[in-house]
């Protein structure tokens, strides 16, 4: 029972991270119909700029984390303004734009490499990493904070998408940007918002998960792929389906690592998700998207 609890907890922690990346990917995709390959890089940027502000500049956490979010929001804005928008305006196809976001990922990694170097860095923790034992299960406040943040963000996004007029416009742009524009919605602004919002979510994730994973310049691409796997499991249709997929992948990973060979956990999960993608490309909860051209 105790091992089971630990399994669930560690699965939930990693799963929350994948869920947050997946949710951001689905949100950007929902508005812009493009997979943002740079999404995982915002987690990297969040983790490493926490190192910069809190460790290097010795700012207190309460000042440091907002600074991190500002940095991520700015970079997210730049990705939209300097890559996504110019490509859309010259009529590029979605795949071309996706390669453009991959270029952005490369630029972010390359820049981070110049600032932080190739070594893994210790990311300062906002919450204690001391073990706390509740009902026989040992956890850390940092771990719990990740799960709590995830739950909070889910609630926030749900409220924003389904209980505000602004959320309605976001969903409208996702369904048909041309029609939304005709109705007076500024599609470009909405898409810019989705990029910036996703960047902030990424940065927050990075700041929280950094102390557990360690900050590394090349951590981003793997997170993008895990996030996409979450999207595959849940389906592109909604951010919440993607988030559910992320939690599922976290739990699956923890299980495979525990009962099988942890060394091969990653390729096994990749293989499983790849099969899943081939058998049911629209996700377990998803809409018929993949067969549309």
């Amino acid at each position, binding site marked *: 029972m105790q091992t089971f609890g630990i399994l669930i907890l560690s699965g939930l922690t990693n799963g929350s991270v994948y869920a947050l990346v997946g949710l951001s990917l689905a949100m950007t995709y929902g508005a812009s119909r493009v997979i943002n390959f740079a999404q995982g890089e915002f987690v990297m940027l969040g983790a490493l700029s926490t190192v910069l502000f809190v460790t290097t500049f010795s700012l207190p956490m309460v000042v440091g984390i907002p600074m991190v979010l500002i940095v991520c929001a700015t970079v997210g804005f730049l990705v939209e303004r300097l890559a996504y928008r110019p490509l859309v305006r010259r009529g590029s196809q979605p795949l071309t734009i996706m390669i*453009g976001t991959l270029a952005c990922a490369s630029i972010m990694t390359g820049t981070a*490499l110049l600032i932080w170097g190739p070594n893994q860095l210790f990311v300062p923790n906002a919450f204690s990493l001391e073990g706390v034992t509740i009902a026989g299960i040992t956890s850390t406040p940092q771990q719990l904070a990740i799960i709590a943040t995830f739950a909070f963000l889910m609630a926030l996004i749900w409220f924003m998408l389904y209980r505000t007029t602004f959320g309605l416009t976001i969903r409208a742009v996702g369904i048909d940007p041309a029609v939304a524009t005709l109705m007076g919605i500024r599609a470009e602004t909405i898409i810019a918002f989705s990029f910036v919002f996703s960047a902030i979510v990424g940065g927050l994730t990075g700041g929280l998960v950094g102390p557990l994973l360690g900050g590394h310049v090349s951590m981003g691409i793997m997170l993008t792929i895990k996030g996409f796997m979450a999207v595959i499991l849940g389906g592109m249709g909604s951010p919440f389906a993607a988030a559910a997929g992320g939690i599922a992948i976290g739990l699956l990973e923890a299980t495979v690592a525990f009962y099988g060979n942890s060394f091969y956990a990653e390729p096994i999960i990749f293989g499983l998700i790849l099969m899943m993608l081939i058998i049911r490309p629209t996700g377990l909860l998803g809409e018929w998207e993949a067969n549309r051209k």
Partner: protein
Amino acid sequence: MSSTTLRNWLPATVILMIGAVLPWLLQGNFQLRIAMLTWVFAIFGMGFNLLYGIAGQLSLGQQAFFAIGAYTFALLQIHFALSLPLALLGGIVVCAVVGLVIGLPVLRLRTHYLAMATLMFAMIVHDVALRWTDFTGGTSGLRVPPPSLFGARLERIDLYYLVFGLAAAAYCLQIFIKSTHLGRALEAVKTDETAASSVGIDVTRYKVSIFVVAAMFAAVAGIAYALVSRGVDPSYSGIGMVVNLLTLSVVGGLGSRIGPFIGAAIVIIAPQILAGLQEYQTLIYGVGLLVFMIFLPRGIGGSIERSAEGSFDDPKGEKSARRISRAETP
């Protein structure tokens, strides 16, 4: 001589001449190595160009075939003491088979899904290369025996001509595919799968075939890279490799005949010439990729071909009109 023939074989002649005389113009092993790497990446780029530039199927997993080819080549020589030509053939065949087995299910997917599925396949290959230490040598990889052909040890210069010969052969194959019914059918598949099938094109078969061909190109490139580097390691299947591939393809020009050569030359040579730029490589590739996509989406090769085409067969100045209508091919 028709303009099409001229368009195909004029660049071929130029490339052949450059390739043949290059060793006399270069000094030292380092420069020769750079020249060889250019041919290697041109082969890699040509395969991708056929798959994405012509057939419209985006794979982000070509680096897996690059690595599988190279590892097979090394393993066949190490464990079975196969000669170089047989190991080369073995690497190509293994990649073709893997390409078929992966391609059949994966090519039912389209666009983003296809791209991510192939990327995941490459991540699995990368993980295996890293982790199956007994077989792949783990992080340090495998060493490739010194190349010899029919009992004679190959010198650097012989190796150069071998690699160059492979690139020339790959170019001919590319031209053959592009300018026959195969190329037309692939273009049709890219444009409209339903219409393609109703004019009699077996869409699935064509997609899988070109995927296998691209896998074989990647295998040849990987093997040539292993020969030049005297070894193979997990970076072959790394994410950096696919960024190199995309950058060279976009800079050279997707769908362009000469694009892969120009792209490879720029992507390989640029970081070497600008001293101390290695550290900036990831950043520069990213910026280059983005800038070309926005400002010169046809790439250098495509732009050259476009203006050359105008002077070949477009005397009435219709090329400007054509430029507009063709502006968006992925």
